[in-house]
């Protein structure tokens, strides 16, 4: 199955709350599109069903609301990202610790990369 706009449209219909227009999903910021695309790819690999994904997302949204999230739609993809991190850890793809280490490594890569050069992850970023 290709990772294409048709698949994206099906996902946007299958998962409640995905911001979209008549052609498919729309995004507020570039990272939202990245998070969406990764989820689509994992779904196509059979890591989870859309039902499973929708449940995982709903848990994150409920938790955020309990913590006072205004739920204006602006934070939808923040919940999406949190659900993705949690679900792939539950599936044994990675661990919260590994996610933390990689996040930190990217932060270091950023800090040592002068503006205008592509940011690349190097082994020393994990030191």
């Amino acid at each position, binding site marked *: 199955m290709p*990772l*294409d*706009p048709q698949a*994206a449209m099906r996902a946007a219909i299958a998962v409640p709350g995905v911001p979209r*227009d008549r*052609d*498919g*999903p*729309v*995004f*507020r*910021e*570039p*990272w*939202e*599109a*990245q*998070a969406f*695309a*990764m989820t*689509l*790819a*994992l779904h196509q*690999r059979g*890591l989870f069903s859309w039902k499973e994904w929708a449940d995982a997302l709903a848990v994150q949204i409920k938790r955020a609301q309990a913590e006072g999230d205004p739920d204006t739609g602006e934070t939808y993809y*923040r919940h999406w*990202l949190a659900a*993705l*991190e949690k679900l*792939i850890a539950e599936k044994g*793809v*990675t661990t919260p610790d*590994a*996610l933390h280490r*990689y*996040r930190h*490594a*990217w*932060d270091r890569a*950023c*800090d*040592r*990369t*002068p*503006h*205008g*050069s*592509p*940011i690349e*992850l190097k082994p020393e970023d994990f030191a």
Partner: protein
Amino acid sequence: MSGHDHDHPHGHEHSELSETELRVRALETILTEKGYVEPAALDLLIETYEKKVGPRNGALVVAKAWTDAGYRKWLLTDANPAIASVGYAGRQGEHMVVLENTPKRHNMVVCTLCSCYPWPVLGLPPVWYKSAPYRSRAVADPRGVLADFGVELPKETEIRIWDSTSEVRYLVLPMRPAGTEGLSEERLADLVTRDSMIGTGLPKRPEDIK
């Protein structure tokens, strides 16, 4: 050649990604290393959302500048409030500068960092825009890069390359195409492409969109 000459009082200027962007990068790296996702396939899909990210009001800004001389002047001297007046809500601290294309000068913007690209105005950057070869070639051989995009400019037109910084983002104001007299702002905005606002393309002509 670099189009900006700013002081950076806080020492060297390094790259910046938000906490959220770092998390997304971490995820993508892990999933790629484990063979769950292919970055090229992700990029390909994401590129189809070029027109679906952010408010993308750059085209409206350009169309307004083509029809309203007062607005054009405002835009060229103080871009942030001029852009904000058509509904742009950018991140704080982003200073926009609008570069006017003329028969004498064509402006082209480079930056390999997605974080320096004014996506709220332009939508998503093209994938190639982030590649190192594009950046170095644009600086060394701008006419060659433009030719790759099918753009040929008169020999006497100077091509100027501008390098986005973390503080300054550029928007190119392309020249209004011939034969567009009497078109409404809305129709004119349809002619304004993303590539024409980063200087790697020209606006469409009215006959292209009929």
